[in-house]
């Protein structure tokens, strides 16, 4: 049977790959930023799963601290990216929109 560490590590890896794929393929800036957030979640999941010990083993706190730091860093980068994305849309007449915006027409 697959160990918990392995299961979550692989999930993290798949999340990373999913995010990377979307980052490359999608064209909407918000989607790209979402994708990079998914990627960082994947990396953090791998990191924390490294620290996990089955049973009552002692948990390694260093990866937890690293992930906390990483979350802060990714929030900062995300915030900057979002504001920048809005500015890009505002100043250059580039609507970086290939997907539709309407909430009600997404069924297509």
């Amino acid at each position, binding site marked *: 049977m697959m160990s918990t560490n392995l299961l979550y590590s692989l999930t993290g890896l798949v999340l*990373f790959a999913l995010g990377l794929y979307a980052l490359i393929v999608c064209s909407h800036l918000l989607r790209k930023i979402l994708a990079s957030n998914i990627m960082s979640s994947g990396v953090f999941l791998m*990191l924390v799963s490294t620290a996990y010990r089955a049973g009552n083993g002692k948990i390694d706190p*260093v990866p937890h601290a690293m992930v906390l730091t990483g979350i802060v860093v990714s929030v900062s980068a995300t915030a900057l*990216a979002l504001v920048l994305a809005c500015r*890009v849309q505002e*100043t250059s007449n580039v609507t970086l929109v290939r997907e539709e915006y309407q909430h009600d027409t997404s069924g297509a």
Partner: protein
Amino acid sequence: MLIFDADAWIICPIVFPLAASIFFFLSRRTGPVAAPVAALATGVSIIILLRQLLLFGPRHYYIGGWQAPLGITLRFDGPAVLMLAMTGLTGIGITLYARGYFSFRIAAPKRVGRHERQERFFWPLWMMLWAAMNGLFLSSDIFNLYVTMELVSIAAVALAALSGKPASQIAAIRYLLVSFLGSLSYLLGVVFLYKTYGILDLDMLQDIAGAAPGTRVALALITIGLLLKTALFPMHFWLPPAHANALAPVSAILSGLVVKGSFYLLFRFWFEVFSGAISIGALNMLGILGAGAILWGALQAMRQQRLKLLVAYSTVSQLGYLFIAFPLASLEGNMKVWGAVIFMAMAHACAKSAMFMAAGTIYLHIGHDRINELVGIRAYLPVTALAYAIAGVNLMGLPPSGGFIAKWLLLSASFNSMQWWWGVVVMVGSLLASVYVYRVVCQLFIIPEGYTIKKQYPRSHLLEWPAFTLALISLLLGLFAPYPLHILTIGSSNVATIIPGGPP
């Protein structure tokens, strides 16, 4: 007990600009006055570090007094101090130039509010960037390196977008996404390393890292991440727009300094930490990409119509030389190639900053940077034109410039190790560089018949002389080559260790 440990100087290059950054954020008007002071203080602390290195040799500094596997270690040795010195020298020049640049623009009667705002945010951002760069060169902990790299890239992106032009903002968000991707790839590599070895300290990793499967994967991920940030040839697409569309002092910072940070790490990872895990094929791969960068960057630079884009593409090209060193290092012994790389980085930092500053000065004075219309700049910006030409000499690699020494070391390494083809690439690259440098210098220095100066702005010494001085330094670097090479040999072996304050 009040003991101020002499070793504590190692944190000063990080703490001084950091404190300056916060201070400039809090009090808006002090930036232009206090920034040169902060830059000088940082420079002095780097000189003291250099002196300590010469007197006592390389050191480790355990932050918080916690020994390596638990705490974070700072380390200074020859290469690190040389990179610090490079950053310091260029940084002081850029600080002075930026002061002249912003006061010139604020003095111009239009869009004063915008320029004041730009200056106000420039100082804290630049100081933060500088602190992070210094932290990057000194840190010896792979996760701490991730945090400092993020600091560097967020500050760099904010600076790149500072000009407010639409093109610069598109370039900035691209830059941000790419460098975020690079950081994540690096972090994934760190995760693999931690999974394999359970430690984060570079020196300890160096001792135990073998060719375990996790190590190779980690090295590959870290390399890809750092290559994205360094903008090696196929991954260079974000660099020219970001560097060319920024404000002139920012272009100088980005092109001269920021790309060197991730390159330095890359070199350190490959030749110190994981020298046991790398293969010849991978080294040659990097060399080939470097060769591609040299040729492609130079060809692109040759066909640009705008001066700043030309200079930015020449950065792509010059970065390639740094990667040519990789395949050579494997056969020729690390020291010589380290010398070439460090020389290349230092000379390029000074020369490229000088070039961007000169381009910025020209832009400020004539309002555009279309190369074909730059005729006769020499007539009213003689110092700037000369600075551009001298920096160009360095890019071409003519003696006695630092670029010449670097290329000489690369050439001799390539012929000694029977890999002459790298030498050929270096020479072809230099030829192409001379074409694109000459193309601009020609325009700057030719004064056609009946040429009259249309606009006469007041000349600003702070705009002209820092660029000239940096260009001159890059030129004279070659004459004083033995000195940096000696410092470089104070390498990473037999590092003396000192624990400040002892573990509590």
